[in-house]
């Protein structure tokens, strides 16, 4: 009887511990702002999870960098000419008028979430397209 009671107590503690760990790990990402509202972005997060796992394994000896930071660093950056003015085209995204060479510059505000899509052009080239997520 004592052994049975002991095993039940161990199971109680194990259940409570597992419930706590699961709550701590998933509640923040599954629900929005401590409310019952479901976070629709969880699917984007899950899609990038294998990539994040591979990135962390391949960068195991390098300083820790989140997948977001890694992908952000891959966005090409240029120095626009001074005096460029930008008009908003989407939330957190601004575009300039074409300059003398016909080039346009895009300004993305810090904290803007972008979805990365890879598109294959007719000539076979693959390009990355960054789509702002509302």
């Amino acid at each position: 009887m004592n052994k049975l009671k002991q095993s039940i107590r161990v199971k109680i503690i194990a259940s409570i511990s597992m419930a706590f760990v699961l709550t701590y790990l998933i509640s923040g990402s599954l629900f929005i702002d401590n409310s019952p509202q479901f976070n629709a972005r969880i699917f984007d997060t899950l899609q990038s999870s294998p990539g994040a796992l591979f990135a962390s394994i391949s960068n195991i000896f390098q300083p820790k960098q989140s997948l977001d930071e890694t992908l952000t660093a891959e966005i090409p950056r240029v120095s626009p000419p001074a005096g460029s003015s930008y008009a908003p085209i989407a939330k957190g995204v601004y575009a300039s008028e074409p300059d003398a060479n016909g080039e346009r510059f895009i300004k993305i505000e810090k904290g803007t979430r972008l979805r990365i899509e890879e598109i294959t052009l007719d000539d076979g080239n693959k390009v990355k397209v960054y789509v702002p997520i509302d």
Partner: protein
Amino acid sequence: MYFGPFFFDTKEIFLIVASFLLGLALLFGWEIWWFDKQVLLTLVILMLITKGLLPAIHNEAFFILGIVTIFLTLYLPVFHVVIFYFLSFLFFRLLKVI
């Protein structure tokens, strides 16, 4: 203890008394140190409902879970505590505690 055709054991009576006290504390603005009265009242009502669904042989599991749940209200948002409470029952069932 029987109230008409309904039977309440001591733990359920204590939960009902606790819910009345919390209700009065909310009404009259009594101070309860560190704990949020509304959160405690919500949890007490949840515990009363779940206690009503559990047979009395599972009192130990329910008692430990109740203590941990109330303690967690000091550290976690109430919604996370509610999720924790229901997940605990799920794991109790999976591990055949209840």
